[in-house]
Structure formats: C-alpha cells, structure tokens
C-alpha cells in the first residue's frame, strides 16, 4: 500500500497505522504521541496529540475525512494522503491539545525530575502557546504512597494510562488503575503502597511526564549532568532482557533505565532488580556511551559525532582584522589549571 504523508510517499504493509508510517519516513512529519506506546498493546487514541488531516481517504474512496483523526490508531489505506506538519488545522489542534494538557499540569520543570526528558516539555516547545489563558485554580491531589520504589506525583499526571497498560500487560497482578472521572481522574492503588511487582519499574519508563519517578534517583541529579552508557548483565529474572542504560556521575551509577529509542520508547522492558538494586559498576558490562537524538537536552555537551569548528564572523568584524588584539583577549593559550609552584594540584586537569 502506498501512503503519502506531507508529500512524502512510502510503501507500507496492510495494518500499518499512519503514525507508524510517519515514523518510517521520520523527520518533522512524525506526529507527537503522549499516550501511544508501540511496545504496549491497546495504547493510543487518548491524548489526541497525534491528530492528522487525511486529505484523501484512499484510491477507492478519495474523499477527505471530515474530522482530524488520531494517527496512532488509524490504519493506512492504499493511496491515502495525509497532512501532518503541513496542515494548519493540525497545527491548531495540536496547539489546543498542548494548551489543554498544560491546564492542570504544573509548569514546574525547574524542579521536576523529568525535566530534560519530558515529552510534554518537548510538545510544549514545539506546539505550545506563549501565554496561558487558563486563570482558574489548578486541580491538585493529595500525595499518595504507592510503593517503596516509585513516587507518584499525581498533580503532574496527564492520564495517558500507559502505566496502567504496563500493569495489565507486564505484571502478574493489577494493583493500580484509574479512579474517578473527567479531570478528577487519577492513577491510584486500591491499597496503599501496593506496587511491588518485579516489573513495576517500567511504569516509570513509560510515563511521558514526571508523574511517576524513581525513588532511588529522585532529586539526585538532573539528567543532563549524568552520562548515559549502554550496559548489560546476565539477569536471571524471567522476561528481563538485562540490557539497560546506566546514568553515571563519575563512577557512580545514579540511575538505571531501559534503553530508549528516538521516540522515548523502551527497546525492551527490564526488571526491578536491574533497575533499582544493581547500582554498582561491577554488576554491569558497560558497552559504551549512549547516543540520543540530536535535539535532546540530554545531549548537552555530549557530542558524539564529528563537530566542525565554528567561525564567529562577528568577532572578526568587531576586531576588524587586528589579530594582535585578538591574541590579547583570547583565553586559548592560558593554562588555568590550578597549580602550586607550577605543578598541577593532585594531578587534576581542569578544562
């Protein structure tokens, strides 16, 4: 089947959704997704971030679809034409969804543990409005203890229900779900501190915002201060792949997560033992540094690719070719390692 998304044609197998087709093409046409998670069955259709405009239904029925459709749950048809990035209606709808999501989600990125790897932060950056029109009181929830490994911050939850699907599909007993209706909906447990399943930690990985965070890592560091490394170990827990990303600060493993792809989806789920209990370097075989997508904040100061020298034209203009002055203000040749009597202190090399 041939599908065209934003003018780019691609051949896909029957049963492929528009979102999957867009991800095959890649680039700017890929709709954002907050609730869809390809590794979990039955997700998608809820957040409405991935709405697209189907301008031609198929070869057999070329009529455009009257309403915007959720690309994550709408199957491709042969000859279908879709506008994602190139549709004003879609841009408006995504802007609206972003605004709706930010109504009750506090803008506390500076103190949120998810800052730097938050899908809502990225969505807001791409599609958000400069000013918020919501002036009413925000919805708040009482703090709730759901277990010793995971911290639930319900005020930040956007009810994408990915964690509920994790509980349904990965754990042997369902101990949490959605309570109440409408904007009072909340993720909660029937019994306090009930989440203790061996795979429950995956709820943290699938959470697109900072509603579910790792108690062993909470407030220890910002993610961009950590260095991510691919690592693995021989894990004996059935169902665990043992392949992880270690988030290190020096030689200290501060956090362990599953490995994620460019859409922030895990490649394979891991067990709680790997995630929470193995924080010693000796527990792991470290494969090497982990590469993330180019625009990720996690990549700040961690360029793995080849970088070209930047020529600053303004400097040339200001100095008008006076290279002698340039030398005077340049720090390039100054050795600013701390030294005592010309020797480096404790062998440390700064810079």
């Amino acid at each position, binding site marked *: 089947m041939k599908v065209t998304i934003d003018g780019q044609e691609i051949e896909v197998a029957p049963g492929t959704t528009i979102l999957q087709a867009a991800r095959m093409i890649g680039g700017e046409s890929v709709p954002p997704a907050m609730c869809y998670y390809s590794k979990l069955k039955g997700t*998608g*259709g*809820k*957040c*409405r*971030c991935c*709405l697209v405009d189907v301008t031609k239904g198929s070869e057999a029925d070329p009529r455009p679809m009257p*309403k*915007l459709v*959720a690309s994550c*749950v709408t199957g491709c048809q042969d000859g279908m034409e879709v506008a994602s990035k190139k549709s004003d209606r879609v841009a*408006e*709808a995504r802007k*609206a*969804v972003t*605004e*709706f*999501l930010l*109504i*009750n989600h506090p803008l506390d990125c500076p103190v949120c543990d998810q800052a730097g790897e938050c899908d809502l932060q990225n969505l807001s950056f791409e599609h958000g409005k400069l000013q918020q*029109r*919501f002036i*009413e009181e925000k*919805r708040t929830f009482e703090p709730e203890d759901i277990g010793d490994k995971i911290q639930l911050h319900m005020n930040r939850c*956007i*009810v994408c*229900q990915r964690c509920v699907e994790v509980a349904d599909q990965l754990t042997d007993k369902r101990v949490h*779900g*959605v309570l*109440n*209706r*409408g*904007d*009072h*909906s909340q993720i909660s447990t029937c019994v306090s501190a009930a989440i203790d399943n061996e795979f429950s930690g995956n709820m943290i990985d699938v959470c697109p915002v900072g509603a579910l965070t790792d108690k062993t890592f909470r407030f220890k560091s910002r993610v961009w201060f950590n260095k991510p490394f691919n690592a693995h170990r021989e894990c004996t827990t059935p169902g665990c792949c043992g392949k992880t990303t270690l988030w290190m600060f020096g030689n200290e493993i501060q956090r362990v997560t599953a490995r994620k792809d460019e859409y922030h989806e895990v490649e394979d789920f891991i067990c709680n033992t790997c995630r929470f209990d193995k924080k010693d370097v000796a527990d792991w075989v470290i494969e090497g540094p982990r590469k993330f997508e180019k625009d990720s904040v996690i990549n700040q100061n961690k360029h793995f690719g080849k970088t070209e020298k930047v020529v600053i034209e303004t400097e040339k203009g200001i100095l008008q070719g006076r290279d002698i002055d340039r030398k005077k203000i340049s720090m390039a040749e100054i050795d600013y390692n701390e030294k005592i009597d010309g020797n480096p202190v404790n062998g440390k090399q700064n810079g």
Partner: protein
Amino acid sequence: MGRKILLDKINVPGIKTYEVYRREGGYASVEKALKKMTPDEVVEEVKTSGLRGRGGAGFPAGMKWSFIDKKSGNPRHLVCNADESEPGTFKDRYLMEYIPHLLIEGMITSSYALGANLSYIYIRGEYMWVYKILERAIAEAKAAGWLGKNILGSGYDLELFVQIGGGAYICGEETALIESLEGNRGNPRLKPPFPAVKGLWQNPTVVNNVETISAVPWIINNSGADYAGIGIGRSTGTKLISASGNIKNQGVYEIELGLSVYEFMNSDEYCGGMQTDRPLKALVPGGSSVPILPANLIYKTAAGEDRLMTYESLSDGGFATGSMLGSGGFIVYDDRACIVRNTWNFSRFYHHESCGQCTPCREGTGWLEKVLWRIENGQGREEDIELLWSIQSKIEGNTICPLGDAASWPVAAAIRHFRDEFEYHIRFPEKVKNRDHFVHEPFEKVKHLIAKQEV
C-alpha cells in the same frame, strides 16, 4: 389526536403484568416473526419502516442491523441501551416502568432478527425500581415460554438479562456501554471496529435504544410500510418526547413525527402552552446536548417554513439556525430563564460526566464550566466570551466519542444566540450576583443597559 404506537395501551389497567399484556395482544410479533418470518425478513421489514435510532443519533435501525457480521460465525448479541441520562430526557423509563413487556417483546423479535441467543438490557443504576419491574417481567415472560430454549417450538433459543450500570452518562455511548457490560470502566472504545463487527466480548453486537426496540413489535405486527406511512419524509413513525420546563403540561408524549412545534407547544393534548403568561424565550428540543434555539427560530426555520418535530426540520440551516431532534428532551424556557446559568448548569453536568479518557474532553469541559461559573457569578472578564468560544471549538470533533461535542454545542449555541446576555453578565457583575437576577427583572427589561453603555 395523534396516532399512538408505543403508548397505545399504556392506560390499560394492569398492563404491567403479563396476563393483561398478553390479553391485549402482546407478544403477537414474536409469534408472527418466529412462525412465519425468517430473520432476514424481519430485518427487511424494519428497514422498510425507516425506523431511526431513538437514542439521539437517529441512525436508521434496519441499516444498523444489516451491518452485523453474520459471516464470522461468532455469537451475536443485542444490547438494549436503557442508560437514559441526558438531562431533560425521561422517556425510556416511562416505557419500561409502565409497559415493560413491550420492551421484552421487542427484544425477543429483534434478537431473532439478528440471530442473537444472548441479549442484554443495560439499565442505569439509578433506575433501580425499573430494574425490578423488568426483572419481574422477564421472569413472567420466561415462565410463559417466550424466553429460554426452543421458543414456540421454533428451535430458536434466547436468554435475556438485565444489567445495572454504575450510573454514568458516558455509559449511554454504545462502546462505553459495552465496556461497562463487560465489567470494565465505562470508557468509550475507538471506532472502527464498530460494535456490529466487534462488540460485546469481541462478538458482533447491535446496541439499540429502549424506544427503538419497543417500536419493533408494531412494525412486525402491522408492516414496515405502514410504519413508514406515519411521519414525514425520512422521519417516519412516532417519537416519544419528554417535555419539561415552563409549560403547562410537563410529561412524556407520543407524537407523530411531522407535528409542528407550534402545535406541540400550544395544543392542550401536549404541552398546553406556557405555564404562565410569560413569553417564550428559548427551547432545547432534543435534550441538553443539542443547541438551544432562541424564540425567533422555534416556530419557524431559517427558510421561513413552519418548524416541525422531525429530524430534518429541527436541524434546518445547521447549528447557525437549527438544532437537533436528539433524544426528544424538550426543554422550554420563559423570559425569566438565565441562559448563562443554564449553560453553566449543562456544562457542569458534562464536566462531571466526562470519562477523562481523552485530553480535550477531560480538560476542556472543566475549563468551560469554570469560566461559565465566573461569568454567572459576576466575575467574568470581557475576553471570556471569546475564550469560551475558543475552548468549545477546540473540543468539538477532536474527542474519542460524542460527549465532547455534547459539551461543546450548548455553549456555542448559547453564545451564538444569546451573546448579549453574556455581555450583560460581564458588564454588570453586581446585578448578576443575585442568583435570581432574571426572575424579577427579565433580561428584556435590562437589555437597554448594554445599549446605553455602548453609547
């Protein structure tokens, strides 16, 4: 006198019981269908009748039945949607309470047509007394041999169960109803697949409203053509209207589709005119989710024709000048009604009842309610009217199920037709802080204030 199909026998003493119902000719359609007709012939008869779904959407029932997947070989189900909860609509409970065997008869005939051996009536939990009435009626029908194995020796088996819902408006949406029936949280499913292909327990399922199913016995006893002869155009048959508000005779009425709104409003047989001598201000013709109509568009359409009680006439001109027949919740307002408060009240309902599954509905309905509450309580800002318009337009069409639209349309229509009332609330906050602000001083009397300020 209009022709009665559903409520014809409603005044017969003891019609609630099996003996009286049977004596009055009840269950004849089951006999006729099972002994003389094939299931396909029953479906054809319903198709010929032009019967449209009476739950609100108005989709042709026969066509819906014909979509059911018979090739899969999976068991099929008929589910009766008795989760009546649209504000202003109270017709289904009337049928079930006073003539329960009519629904059961319709369920048997319809189930036979669909080849369903396991059928359900899903009723909202608040209708507990009606649930008990239905349970008793089903037991009577079963004892008389109308349910169970080999009904009338035809080889057809049917079990019929009544299931009580938890009492959520969203469970009236067919896929949410199915979810609830399966024992899950009542969240709407994404369509496709439609229930006719994958419904209850992934089996082909038809979900019909109480009133729709109750019309089937008459269609089979008489004929689809006879039913199609009642009404006008594509609006065939009769319709139950639950009338409330500032009219003399509130209640449930059966009308022939095609009756003029004027006659329904003013004839003694139906509403009997306005309750007092106060002028008519607005009308919600089809339950709270449909757009409100201002006085000048109630009796006449935009084209200047008489407004009729039909699907087409009530929606004439789209939402700019029309509304919908919807579920038939006919709510009348006189000039003391505050449209802003009324809209806030509806919004409060949709906010409370949103299932919370999709973002625009979950967050947008709450936002609408909060802004409307502020305006109604004298805390509105000038930009709030545009804000309301913007919010409702962002909800409409972007949600999983029609609840988002239902929350959005009343707000849009209220702003479209009664914008000056919103402006009045915002410009004269001290006047609207009194909850009875339009009771003693109807809007028409204070309207000049807005004009004065503009000068």
